[in-house]
């Protein structure tokens, strides 16, 4: 393989990482597991930076924990770690599920959720789980740290609001599902040579004791230039009794508001619409059952 960068830095502190980015003044780029970025560079889809800055070993950013009531995920956390984390399995199930089906085991062992978000792909099958959970991300640059909603990060295909030459995405967080809440994820792949899902769906639901849906977040991708939250589906659900009728209505509402597209070799628009029509109700149903306290094993490979 070609020499694509001259320096590979593994800073130990956030300050050190920020200083490195400052020092290179735009010539460095942040890398997580590298399983997308390094291929983009090798195959000419991204320019080769002078230096790579790898924040995955920064003290305190490698793990998953609780802070201020949030589940907080460090930028060093791999998809494997997220998929297996008991807290996320129990209280952010759709994220555990989506993290368990990206790539293969070797990729999930190094690829980070932070990297997946920064890559900002419309298919975003890793990110829509976090988006359904109303996740937030924390970035840091020379001007300091700030939290912002995940949805604000995505600008377009492969384009994020985080300047990966000058800023780091260091943590992600979401409020864990509590009693009366549940989430679920599902996606459809084809076996042929397209390493991206035909469609992915995730949902987080909150139901009252009488089964009325109190809150809902439904995400679908690819359904536009960025991973997409279907407000129409959420609006349809809120106030309705959890059940097939509401779920099917939500799917119809989602279809009415989303721009599902024909994409050559990946999926036809008709197929995607059919998947939303038939499978979004299933995702919602699993989320609702979980909200009602049912223990449904996380979906994933081998299931």
């Amino acid at each position: 393989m070609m020499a694509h960068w001259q320096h590979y830095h593994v800073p130990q502190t956030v300050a050190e990482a920020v200083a490195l980015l400052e020092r290179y003044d735009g010539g460095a780029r942040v890398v997580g597991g590298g399983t997308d970025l390094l291929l983009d560079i090798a195959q000419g889809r991204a320019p080769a930076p002078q230096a790579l800055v790898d924040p995955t070993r920064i003290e305190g950013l490698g793990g998953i924990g609780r802070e201020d009531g949030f589940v907080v995920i460090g930028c060093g956390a791999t998809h494997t770690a997220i998929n297996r984390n008991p807290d996320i399995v129990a209280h952010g199930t759709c994220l555990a599920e989506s993290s368990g089906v990206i790539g293969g085991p070797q990729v999930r062992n190094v690829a980070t959720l932070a990297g997946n978000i920064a890559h900002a792909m419309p298919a975003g099958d890793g990110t829509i789980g976090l988006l359904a959970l109303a996740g937030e991300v924390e970035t840091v640059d020379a001007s300091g740290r700030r939290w912002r909603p995940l949805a604000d990060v995505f600008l377009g295909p492969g384009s994020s609001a985080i300047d990966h030459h000058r800023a780091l995405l260091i943590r992600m967080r979401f409020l864990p599902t509590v009693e009366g809440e549940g989430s679920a994820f599902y996606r459809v792949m084809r076996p042929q040579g397209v390493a991206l899902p035909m469609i992915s769906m995730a949902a987080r639901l909150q139901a009252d004791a009488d089964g009325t849906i109190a809150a809902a977040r439904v995400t679908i991708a690819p359904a536009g230039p960025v991973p997409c939250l279907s407000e129409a589906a959420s609006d349809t659900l809120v106030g309705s009794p959890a059940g097939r009728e509401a779920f099917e209505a939500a799917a119809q509402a989602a279809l009415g508001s989303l721009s599902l597209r024909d994409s050559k070799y990946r999926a036809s628009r008709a197929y995607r619409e059919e998947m939303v029509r038939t499978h979004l109700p299933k995702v919602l149903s699993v989320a609702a059952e979980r909200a009602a306290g049912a223990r449904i094993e996380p979906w994933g490979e081998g299931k």
Partner: protein
Amino acid sequence: MSRLNLTVNGRPVELDVPESRYLAEVLREDLRLTGTKIGCNEAECGICTVLVDGTPVNSCVYPAFKAQGATIETVENLSTDGQLHPLQQAFLDHGAVQCGICTPGILMTSKALLDEKSAAGEVVTETDVRVALKDTSCRCTGYQSVVRAVLQASGQEVPPYIPETRAPQGEVGRAQPNPDALAKITGQARFSDDYEFPGMLHARTLRAGVPHARIVSINASAARALPGVHAVLTHEDVPGRNRHGLVNIDWPVLCDDKVRYVGDAVAIVAADDRETAAAALERIEVQYDELPPVTSATEAFDAGAPVVHEDWPDGNLLKHIKVAKGDIETGFEDADVIVDRTYRTPTVEHLFLEPECSVGVPAGYDPSTWGGDSDAQAKRGERSVHDKTTVYVGSQIPYQDREQVAAALGTEPEKVRIVATLMGGGFGGKEDVAGQIHVALLAEATGRPVKMLYSRQESLLFHPKRHATVIRIRTGATRDGKLTAVQSTIYGDGGAYASLSEKVLTRATTHASGPYDVPHVKVDCLAAYTNNAPCGAFRGFGVSQSCFAVESNMDILAGELGIDAVELRRMNTLDVGSVTCTGQTMRESVGLNECIERVDADMRDDGFRWSWEEGSSRFAWGLAVGYKNTGLGGGAPDKATAEVGLWLDENDEPRAEVRTSSAELGQGLPAVLAACAAEELGLPRDRVAVLLGDTDYCPDGGPTTASRQTYVSGNAARYAARTLKKRLAASANPGSSLAERVAGAVSQGIPTTAQYEYWAPETQPLGTGGDMHFAFGFCAQAVLCEIDMGTGEVRVRKVIAAHDVGRAINPLTLEGQVEGGIVMCIGYALMEHFIQEQGRPWTNVMARYSAPRIAHAPEIVSHIVEHETADGPFGAKGVGELPSIPTSAAITNAIQRATGVRVRSLPVDQDALLRAIREGEREIELGWGDRESIPFVRFKE
């Protein structure tokens, strides 16, 4: 350069290396731990897997400095103190090692699973194995043996799956691991890229990048001026013949007047390293005058179509192949029911997991000149002095490589030597020369060894594929199910150069009425030159294509006649006494009916149903049968020569070696040759070594193609052994031991080496009506498919197969061929399509080409049928291609039964299938990657 600290296989290492290094490069190049292989550089195939602090990662895209301070484990560390790791032993016992290129990655991924489960005190389940190995690819085994081996290694009682065969006769019929398997599981096996000669340069190829153009000018002066560049060669620098080819000599070594596909080689560079060579490529200026491309076989003959080869007298018609038997008009007049359909099959990539690599060594090379060790005794390798231009390569046809390299160098074949290295899969894709000629030219131009390693992306772009076809086929039968006529017209896309198109498409044509006794047959095949990637040999060799059409039509016919699909086939099978569509009378060894019986009996167990529903899925069985010639046939001289030598070892025990140029692709030829020779000599098999593919030391075994080597080289080894044994007996006392006879011969000056040139029974050219082939293998396969009616996803759940192989010489490696072949054909049916748009590959990275992974591999139940053929070694005939022939039709037959939808283009597209199910369509013409319906085909008059 920066300091990198690692603990590798228990040993601390400190290295000063560039920070741009990947972990795989550090292991392979800096530490020379070449057990770790690189298959794609895309994190797709997983064969480069090593453990970083116990976790499996793809080392080919893992930055070395990300591993700073980490503990690395590679395959070289698996066995301790000469004791094999349980995984290694299990892989040997189960035959889970074929070509061996993926084996290190699979072993390391599996080790991590076993370690994790054992630490957690949990039992390893089959699901665990399938999840862990999800993205660690193997193109050879079909995964069943891998799953079972890993389960056994975890401490469970899982015996190797070996089908029942006739009782062994001495060494023949005994299940044995291939002799080279041990080196492959310990990381010691050496493939071409594992060779590193002192003073070696690295080469790259400038490819056309445009599908069809006239070359106006080539200016390489800037590239030649780049520091670190040692040679830049264009067509002007080819001293001999600037064309190569296995049948037609039409493929430029380096393009001169025109380029005919995007992968065409225009210039080659040798430099100090690959980076410099790549930089040099960018400095070569080529001016093209672009021409419109020919993009499909069905358009190649249109009036006004661009012409690919102006000097070819028939325009874009590479060959019109004809088969005729009886009178086709009469045949259809006799028919009560006629089924007339058109099918399409895709261009398919071999995806052997080892990209092509050749190393050229110039005549007169002495490693000591470049600071290496020189060993006067060394016959080959980095320490030997090379007296001729030598090419190290994993090739299917070493002697033809030698001839083609010599022709380009403008020298005699005897002045060139080909040394076969291990081959990381071939499947037909390593028959045409790849870098062999280029490294020879560069080695002679620079006076230094030169390595040309293709990246995965370059391999995809460059090498010949399986032919895309459009096949119209009309099948006629009487009301009671007797076939009366088959008429077919086949369009085959040969791509830019002839390669083996004529041979492949002849096989498609001669097998186009299926393994049936049909009185009236007419088949025409039009092989086209186009500006797509050249197409050549690929396991199944044209028959995979025509079988899909034949066996789809048979199921439609069964439906229209209201006859059971198995029964309809049984009523029409070829048997001893039948006459094939080429006029050949079958005299023996036709085990097709027994194959059908065995599969049918197994399939129709208690409570059998053709189809049923379960939840949101429908399940259905589908069946197809197939046959495939053994050997070149068609009047081609089909011979193999082998040499057997005997000597006494340090304990005065006799040992033997079989030598022939025939190639091992992972199929298990050394085990077969050793068994054949051992049986004749009366030696245990482990005393018989096998040396393959060194043209200075091995006689010509001919091409490793056409499922022929067990038959021809097996016979050659057997007769050479017999000749030698007779010679020794003639000069010895009756009753003396083999050891005494060897000693006696040596003392009397009688040679203890014998060669035998084995000629297979003569065949006749197509059209003469005689024996087109000297043997055929037969098979039947029943496939259980599950179709998710909510998504259209198709899964193959189980395959029951029966293969008539004449005689099972080594049931373990035979079963490996069966399982691997079936899974490869599942890929053909459901996954694989090398997509080209206007002559440019959309499939330009491995991420755009999926072949079966462990998740796609079903349970396989295998029956071996042994209808011996008189001239085969111990009755054996070929099996290499047979399993890859009927599976695709069996799958679409199952899909039809489950969903009511007939799929006529491969690979099956779940998107189109689901929409057809929803809309009540009964037939679909779009496979995945197809943009247009199947073109209308007029039968050729």
